């Protein structure tokens, strides 16, 4: 699936998006998998209460299942307006 990062999450991980092969069942499982990869992921995902997640461009939550999802995006709380 395509995993995207925005704002300081993108800066901390060092890339805007990547293709990830995963069997993670939920967003939280994917976060655990990514965090185990390298320190920069662990640093970005250290406090998921400071993060938001969108699945196929709809806001979701970390307990949501990933079955059928093509695009996951992680970002800090939004500051539009």
């Amino acid at each position, binding site marked *: 699936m395509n995993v*995207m990062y*925005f*704002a*300081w999450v*993108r800066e901390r991980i060092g890339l805007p998006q990547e293709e990830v092969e995963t069997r993670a069942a939920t967003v939280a499982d994917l976060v655990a998998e990514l965090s185990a990869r390298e320190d920069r992921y662990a640093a970005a995902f250290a406090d998921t209460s400071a993060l938001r997640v*969108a699945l196929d*461009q*709809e*806001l979701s939550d970390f307990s949501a299942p990933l079955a059928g999802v093509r695009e996951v*995006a992680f*970002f*800090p*709380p*939004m*500051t*539009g*307006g």
Partner: protein
Amino acid sequence: MTVLVQSAPFDAGEVLNGFAHGRGDVGAIVSFTGVVRDTKGDLRHMEIEHYPGMTERAIEGIVTRAKSRWSLADALVIHRFGVLPVGAPIMMVATAASHRADAFAAADFLMDYLKSRAPFWKKETTIDGTSWVAAKDEDEAALTRW
């Protein structure tokens, strides 16, 4: 409904005139323009990042909610991204309705939701460096009034 996500500047007066032009069906038009503010006198510029695709969908969803809740003849949202100088317009909402109560309430609702439910992130560059603008608890709390 008009939703524009763009890097280009816009002229709020011109947009509002275009939005209002030829409308005999409404009695009230409300607009709001957000501008890059330099509260401490040290801001060099603001940069806005967004999530292309989700941004448009999220804003359209917010406008659709407003239209289902208030009696609106039309609504417009423009939101910019990219590097914006101090004093530049960031975004604008406009609503048209038969009566002002609907137009004001819907514009207020649109602003509250655009602040924390549309995927934009602001980064400020000051004379001391760059930092991401943190979301405020009060912005999240503002959604509970609706």
